[in-house]
């Protein structure tokens, strides 16, 4: 599935944009979100390093994975916009 669904969302967004139903996304908007995601990811990495219990570590690692997925998607979106 990969980024297929994301691409479909972008197509849908473009249609809404053409109909005047969406605000125009500029690369700067994506960069700002990307920055937030990267700082969250770093925060999670620090938390993982200091986690004492294995359970907490696992939980944080799965959160980190989602954060990385978001980063990957944001980078893709940024590339598409550029």
């Amino acid at each position: 599935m990969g980024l297929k669904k994301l691409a479909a969302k972008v197509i849908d967004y473009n249609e809404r944009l053409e109909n005047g139903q969406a605000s125009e996304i500029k690369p700067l908007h994506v960069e700002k979100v990307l920055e937030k995601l990267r700082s969250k990811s770093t925060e999670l990495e620090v938390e993982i390093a200091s986690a004492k219990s294995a359970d907490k570590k696992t939980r944080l690692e799965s959160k980190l994975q989602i954060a990385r997925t978001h980063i990957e998607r944001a980078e893709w979106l940024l590339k598409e916009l550029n």
Partner: protein
Amino acid sequence: MKRYLLPVAIGSLLLAFWFSPDAQEIAAGVAIFLFGMLMLEDGFKLLGGGTLERVLERATQSTPRAISFGIISTTLLQSSSLVSIVTISFLSAGLISLVGGVGIIFGANIGTTTGAWLVAGLGLKVNIAAYAMPMIAVSIVLVFQKSKPVRGLGYALAGLGFLFLGIHYMKEGFDAFKDQIDLTRFALSGLLGLIVYSLIGTGATVIMQSSHATLVLILTALSAGQISYENALALSIGANIGTTITAIIGSLGANFQGKRLALAHLIFNMVTAIVALVFIAQLRDMVDWISGLVGIAPSDYTMKLAVFHTIFNVLGVTLMLPFLTRLIAFLERRIVEPAPDVSRPRYLNEAVDEFPQTLERALRKEVFHLYENAAELILHGLNLHREQVFATDDVAGLVRKSRTRLELDLEDDYERRVKTLFSGIVEFSARASDKQIDPDIAERIFALRDVARQIVQAVKSIKHIRKNVLRYTVRPQGATTELYDELRTEIARIAVEIRKLGLAESKDRSALWLDQERARIEEDARSTSKRVDALIRKRDLTPAAATSFMNDSGYAYDAMRDLIEAARSYYIERDSAMAEVERILSLDDEELNEAVTNAKRAARTGESEQTVTGLS
């Protein structure tokens, strides 16, 4: 009293028209002037597109800034009443401080004096009707345009045109009137004149609800020689007292803060008026001295009235400023803040209905108020204390230790602290949808109503599981207790994460973080189901307990999903383009599933690589 007011007003007008046809011209002039003010207000609202409201929030960071804002906005809008109403609305919505609000009112009193300068310096000196006609004609072309700012410009231009036309008719009316009746016969001198004409000025402003209109009427009458200069001074003092009525009326639907501001306005204008009346002789001398300095002719009474109006309002602000802190303390003592009642809407009142910006912000705050009540109730329903949950680093450990039954009537608390607020929110949103507001704001208002609905749903879900939480978690009962503890832990963790999101600076937070929680609970929901099956097979869980738990876990996961969705909608980016980015990047259930599976695969690969490395 109220029902007699309208017939009396109309009767008096008809009587005046019958008595003197020229009175019609004066009355029509006042009506056209007031109509112009309304158009000017509408024009600036359209033209600014909420600029006034946006600037207002930032304008109250210091008293000098608040005063400057009051001066500038009133000068531009030529209406201190509109500025007062916006300020009361913002104060009631909790968007500005009382000190800031009082500062704006002080500034508005100075700003309103520019009107007298415009009329005395321009309106009565040149044939402004000659400008009014083309302005009105051009404005109507602009009013019919599609673009909001152009339409706003049209309304503002028409407003200005009608203001000029109103002044022209008042002037003409008084000029014609003086040939028939000499109103100066009714002139009163000395203390009696001061008191009587101050009262007339107050009454006229209360009726017209515009000190600006009263002042223009005074200036035109003075220019036509129909009132004496001395009486005109008293009338203008009275107009300053009468103008407080607009703020008082505006504060009737406001909360305690709005009422405090209206009282501050009344105190300020009364004190200024009393000082002006007591020192009227000295003020007159000062006016003569300043007029001489700036080159105003000794017989130019209209300009001298404008000087007087400015001096006594500036004097009022100068006198009151050193007592600002004491004034605030007095207001807070006099109008006491009602004891916080968690069961009543705190931010939704009629005063915030006035402007879309205050409406949305007040609703946002109220939804947060509802969430605070709901979060406390949810955690109490799980026998957990909110403060302990938010303070701990080990939620699971805290939950295992929390075995004491919390005495609460969840049903009653739900009715009192959740349902009443939700009803208030629903009613407020419905009222808002009746108003013609920007579609974007309307959409955000409905989204906030949905957030409130999801919060309520979450509480309802917890109500369902409360019975078994008490049954299985107060006394340890093996695997069943462990399962219920896990549910309690997961819900508590969601509350912690939502709190973290709320505490984060808006520039740093992203609603996307909640995808991490969503992924976690969906994964937990699946693993819990498998675990229950295993426990039944091992006979560690009775089928009856398993059925109860499966029902309850359904409710618990629904509550978690509702809370996450509510938080996502609440904390989604306010910037619409950024919100679009978040919506696009957000993962749906299938994508979340895939991300979790990938994470597991990556973890397994990591483990096996470590094992291989360890072996070699």
